[in-house]
């Protein structure tokens, strides 16, 4: 299968790329890892007139500390996250997610930012970003703006970028002491979409939960931030009763559809079990940390 014909440019600077995108408007589409975009183009679900390949722009492949954040550049591949010590230190949640994204060959090519921008509700990263309170850094000819992830993820395959804008990085708050996270994913086989995925993030200070994040994959028209469940946790001491209650609230926030991967009731039950297990895993991580 071939994609429909398109024009192709491979700029070598960000300025060149944003100038091109400004000129192209809706016809322009950024190509990074291409592991979602190219299959969609082959199926003619996407028919961009002009691809702007950003792979030749230096500097976008960095994982670096910027203003108290850990910033993941637009060309950081899933495999780079698997291998990164910075990620392991700063975000146990990201570190536990990366090995479960797609398969090893796709991880060598696909990017975190590309997955974030794609806004596929069955993608893993946006649940993680919602749980962590991440921000998306977008560049255009007019400069840069920072978009909170909750404003970025709009709907099914829809983000809030404007024409002429591209994602240059996603950034997460640096994990302070007492931070833990876990991604749990039920999949039929490697490389399949998640039947259910659950991202959990906790920070505990002096026996009290001071931060809680829960993101849900494949159980709604977009990745879901389980706000009510999060709010139940903050300010409380961790306990199995509390976690069970939060897990029930998260399951209620999910909106799964029955499909080949299972009936909706089953998926909702998996959300509940995984939220509880994820939160318990976070507490174990923190107590092991000492």
């Amino acid at each position, binding site marked *: 299968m071939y*994609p*429909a014909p398109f024009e*192709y440019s491979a700029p070598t600077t960000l300025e060149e790329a944003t100038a091109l995108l400004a000129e192209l408007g809706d016809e322009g589409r950024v190509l990074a890892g291409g592991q979602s975009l190219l299959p969609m183009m*082959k199926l003619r679900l996407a028919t961009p007139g002009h691809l702007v*390949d950003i792979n030749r722009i230096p500097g976008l492949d960095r994982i670096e500390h910027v203003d108290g954040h850990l910033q993941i550049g637009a060309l950081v591949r899933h495999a780079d996250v698997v291998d990164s010590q910075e990620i392991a230190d700063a975000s146990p949640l990201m570190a536990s997610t990366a090995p479960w994204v797609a398969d090893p*060959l796709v991880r*060598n090519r696909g990017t975190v930012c590309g997955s974030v921008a794609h806004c596929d509700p069955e993608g893993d990263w946006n649940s993680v970003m919602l749980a962590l309170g991440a921000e998306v850094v977008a560049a255009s000819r007019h400069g840069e703006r920072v978009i909170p992830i909750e404003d970025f993820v709009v709907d099914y395959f829809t983000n809030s970028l404007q024409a002429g804008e591209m994602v240059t990085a996603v950034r997460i708050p640096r994990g302070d002491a007492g931070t833990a996270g876990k991604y749990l994913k039920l999949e039929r086989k490697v490389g399949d979409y998640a039947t259910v995925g659950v991202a959990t993030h906790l920070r505990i200070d002096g026996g009290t939960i001071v931060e809680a994040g829960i993101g849900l994959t494949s159980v709604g028209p977009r990745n879901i931030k389980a706000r009510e469940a999060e709010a139940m946790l903050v300010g409380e001491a961790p306990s199995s009763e509390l976690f069970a209650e939060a897990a029930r609230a998260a399951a209620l926030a999910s909106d799964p559809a029955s499909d080949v991967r299972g009936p909706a009731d089953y998926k909702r039950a998996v959300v509940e079990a995984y939220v509880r297990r994820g939160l318990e895993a976070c507490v174990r991580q923190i107590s092991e940390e000492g």
Partner: protein
Amino acid sequence: MRVDVTINGEPRSAEVEPRTLLVDFIRTHLGLTGTHVGCDTTSCGACTVILDGKPVKSCTVLAVQAHGSELRTVEGLRQNGRLHPIQAAFKEHHGLQCGFCTPGMMLVGAALLEKNPAPSEEEIRWELSGNLCRCTGYMNIVEAIKAAGAGSAGDAVGEDLGAAESVAAAEEMEAHA
């Protein structure tokens, strides 16, 4: 657009449309048909090639994206008419049945062994998890990679291909391209 690559150590180039997939560039434009097209949907790994040191699915990379890069395909495994240890191990341990997935399996195995010369069975299975064998011959594929890593592929290691038809076919193809 012109695409220049170094493939199996040899500089090659061709003019392609931007929408040309890397796998078609390798098979059609460069005449190296050892890389297979299986599912064409990023699922099966039959089209696996090594792009700048990393195994990727070449049905999901544009040829123009590979401009200036270094590629390695199954044809690049044999050296001076001798089987690569991974090829010898696949032969000795019956790591192939129909052979369709084999180029991808061997390249993923070879890339893994370059990174980790003595992987555990679990590490091998994890690394192979993006490659499908429709004959379901996974047991022997895993055995073969393990043997190649341990350098215990026996007498077959470095075996002379001699007059094997594959050499003649490969040379004919190289001359033809």
